[in-house]
């Protein structure tokens, strides 16, 4: 082996890989036309330049990062998008070809409905399972981890997930409760005892469900991944490498729930801090791993419970920011571009989160004051946003054009801006989404 790559070299290798795309057989990707190939490369460079903030791109990049809009606007229900993988991919492909954003984020949002059924997923309700066919899936927040289980999580997070958490949120994974303690598999003597659970019906049933679920996931990714490949040949790259989360949100969203984590701040602050510390390297590993697997550098980090109004500044500085910052720095170290999303309002946090290395991250901004964001965080990071959902849904194309023009003039004139919707949306007037893309291309050219 040669010398270890530096973080910058790792990232550059990902970008270069992205710029010389391969087909599934590993040969150079055949583009639809030389123009498509040229546009593909220009689009990646445009994004890269905007993120790195070293030189101005040729114009302000633009993208659409929707939730269910591509399918609802095509007259499909969310239920259809979740169960008909082929149609889901096809409709998404048409959406990108019609709206022509610089990059897209793949057709992954609906997810495979049948797969969730096989595993009896309880963390979310989805169409036909607690939600109407035309509506998006929604999270059933709860106290999936009990307060007295912090020590188990801290001692062995993977073991806790396997034996305790996963059986609680997947009805079909009950057999996981009986799985052995794997680090106990050490010597010939007694080793077979560890494998007894695999002979028992509950564990075998769970594995049967896993085989079915795996086959379903494969079928889904075949269709959805196919759309990525096809769109690349038309010149539209997907640069999303995967996602990870702030350790505070892992515990607050997934394990303890909002109420649980808020109470833990008072009742067991040390355990909470320790658990986040233990989860931090795992969240870094998760992001780097998916960037390497997909060859895409951007790692999305949706941010929830650090928004304005959830915590005091002091609590934010103590409980939310330190481990999030560590995750961001760890991803950069691993050659990724972290993409944190400031969902809701973050006006009171800007001074704190601006403390990051310059030109290494991209921040999605929702309803925070963009001018203020630019003056703080925006000095160090490229901003992605922030056309409001309300405007896309109820406004006029002219209002969207004016908004984008103003955004480019006030926030984007020296670079560091990518125009996009501010929050994920399921519904909008297509002409407004089109106006967002087209007006960026019109007003965003750097001279």
């Amino acid at each position: 082996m040669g010398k270890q790559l530096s973080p910058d070299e790792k990232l550059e290798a990902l970008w270069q890989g992205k710029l010389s795309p391969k087909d599934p057989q590993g040969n150079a990707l055949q583009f639809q036309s030389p123009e498509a190939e040229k546009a593909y490369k220009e689009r990646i460079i445009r994004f890269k330049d905007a993120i790195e903030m070293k030189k101005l791109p040729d114009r302000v990049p633009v993208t659409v990062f929707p939730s269910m809009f591509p399918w609802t606007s095509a007259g499909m229900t969310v239920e259809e998008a979740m169960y008909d993988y082929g149609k889901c991919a096809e409709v998404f492909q048409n959406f990108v070809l019609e709206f022509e954003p610089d990059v897209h984020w793949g057709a992954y949002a609906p997810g495979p409905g049948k797969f969730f059924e096989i595993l009896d997923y309880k963390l979310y309700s989805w169409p036909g399972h607690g939600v109407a066919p035309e509506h998006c899936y929604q999270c059933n927040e709860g106290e999936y981890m009990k307060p007295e289980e912090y020590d188990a999580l801290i001692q062995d997070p993977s073991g806790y997930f396997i034996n305790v958490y996963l059986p609680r949120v997947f009805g079909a994974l009950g057999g996981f409760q009986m799985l052995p303690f794997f680090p106990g598999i050490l010597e010939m003597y007694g080793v077979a005892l560890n494998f007894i659970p695999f002979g028992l019906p509950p564990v075998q049933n769970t594995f049967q469900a896993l085989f079915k679920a795996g086959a379903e996931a494969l079928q889904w990714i075949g269709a959805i991944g196919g759309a990525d490949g096809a769109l690349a040949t038309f010149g539209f790259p997907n640069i999303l490498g995967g996602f990870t989360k702030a350790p505070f949100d892992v515990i607050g969203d997934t394990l303890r729930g909002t109420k649980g984590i808020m109470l833990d701040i008072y009742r067991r602050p040390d355990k909470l801090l320790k658990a986040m510390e233990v989860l931090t390297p795992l969240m870094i590993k998760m992001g780097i791993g998916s960037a390497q697997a997909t060859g895409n550098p951007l790692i999305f980090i949706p941010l929830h419970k650090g928004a304005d109004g959830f915590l005091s500044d002091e609590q934010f500085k103590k409980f939310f920011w330190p481990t999030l910052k560590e995750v961001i720095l760890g991803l950069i170290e691993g050659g990724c571009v972290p993409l944190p999303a400031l969902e809701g309002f973050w006006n009171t946090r800007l001074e704190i989160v601006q403390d990051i290395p310059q030109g290494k991250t991209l921040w999605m901004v929702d309803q925070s004051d963009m001018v203020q964001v630019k003056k703080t965080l925006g000095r160090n990071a490229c901003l992605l946003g922030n056309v409001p959902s309300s405007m896309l849904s109820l406004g006029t194309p002219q209002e969207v054009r004016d908004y984008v023009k103003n955004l480019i003039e006030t926030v984007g004139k020296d670079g560091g801006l990518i125009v996009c919707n501010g929050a994920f949306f399921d519904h909008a007037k297509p002409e407004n989404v089109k106006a967002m893309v087209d007006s960026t291309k019109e007003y965003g050219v750097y001279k």
Partner: protein
Amino acid sequence: MSKELVNAIADMREEDALRIVREMVESDSDPMTILDAAREAMAVVGQRYEEGTYFLPELMLAGEMLGQITEIVKPALAKAPEVTRYGKVVIGTVQGDIHDIGKNIVTFMLDVNGFAVLDLGVDVPPQKFVEAIRDFQPQVVGLSGFLTLAFDTMKETVDAIKEAGLRDGVKIMIGGGQVNEEIKAYTGADAYGRDAMAGVSLAKQWVGAK
């Protein structure tokens, strides 16, 4: 001792607060004194939240403390305590949307600010709001929603209230996620509130409370 209890709750000293309550119960204090102190503390918590010194951890812990104190005192209570209320609010997350954190915070804040609140929960169909308005006779209706789908179901709910002939009798406020002035105009609500404090001041203003 009740002053001590007020301070313990308001300052988020849970163990102290519960200890004081147990001591008061053991020394045969009037359970109403304990509950009055707890309510007084809740008002302080609400005020600190409005001032921006308290946030969700404090609201949730205060709610927990109140629940525990009520449980301890209950056996000694002859009848449910009477509380004077400024007015009544019906609140719920509109049909199709199951998000409840924001709604619960508004409910809590309305409650500690002296409103009787009927919380209809999540995914509430328009007709259920209409029935609740008929039965509960609120002055204020609060519609919550996090997703873009809520824009339409909020509008449908306001329309249903109108069709039932109940619109003139209530003020309607909306809030949550992406809701703003534009959504307010679209849904036909009377006002939108960006946070729980805004919801409380709208409700107070509408019922004429200070």
